[in-house]
């Protein structure tokens, strides 16, 4: 993929993530910080399907943005065909792994398998 396209994805994921994370943080603040972290409250959040979908979107957006950012930082430090390929595929693998791990939490909790 062209670097210009990757940077557009990087900026797009950033803007979308800012909007959704703002909602996520406001949920914590408006409910009362400590109360919103209680087991029942967190469970209710995960079982509310629109909120679970929002969490999944945040997970995907931040994983893509975060690991692409890490890739960019690592490519600034050193260059070379093998190094660049290793960094790109390594970041891609880490991103997929994190999305899979986070999705497992969201899906299992939403289905009541806790």
């Amino acid at each position, binding site marked *: 993929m062209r670097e210009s396209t990757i*940077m557009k994805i990087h*900026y797009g994921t*950033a803007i979308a993530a*800012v909007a959704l*994370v703002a909602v996520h943080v406001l949920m914590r*603040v408006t409910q*009362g*910080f*400590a109360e919103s*972290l209680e*087991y029942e409250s*967190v*469970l209710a959040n*995960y079982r509310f399907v629109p909120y679970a979908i929002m969490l999944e979107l945040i*997970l995907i957006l*931040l*994983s893509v943005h*975060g*690991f692409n*950012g*890490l890739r960019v*930082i690592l490519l*600034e*430090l050193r260059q070379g065909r093998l190094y660049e390929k290793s960094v790109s595929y390594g970041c891609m693998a880490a991103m997929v792994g*994190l999305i899979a*791990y*986070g999705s*497992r*939490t969201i899906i*299992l*909790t939403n289905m009541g*398998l*806790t």
Partner: protein
Amino acid sequence: MARDGRKGIGGMADPRRYGIERVAYWLMRLSGLGLLAYFVAHIYETSNILRGRVGWDEILHMTQTTEGHIVLALVIGMCVFHTVNGIRVMLGHGGVGVGRPARPDYPYNPASQNYRHKIGIYSAIILAAVAMMYGLAVMFGE
């Protein structure tokens, strides 16, 4: 590595003599790495909900401490700086606020490193500090 007069990564990393833009460059990268580390830790932390009430309460007991709140305040600061400075960088890449092309005259001040972007960087730092204070008030105010 200092070879053939080149300063290498050390030269790139040196924040001195290059103004607030170089400081913003480093803060952007450091806050990005910090936020990625927090994000991975947060995904692991929240996965403890699958262990039921006992598992969740255990992890809350570990994270809802004075040290945990201070770390969270730093995360809030990094998040706000990264967001505001990121918007500045995006606007700059889009050509907003970088000035008009002009003939390079002595002392060759780069048109893109103008007061608008400097204000953007200082605003990001100030907003991050304010958000950290608000976060600390919310977390310790209960």
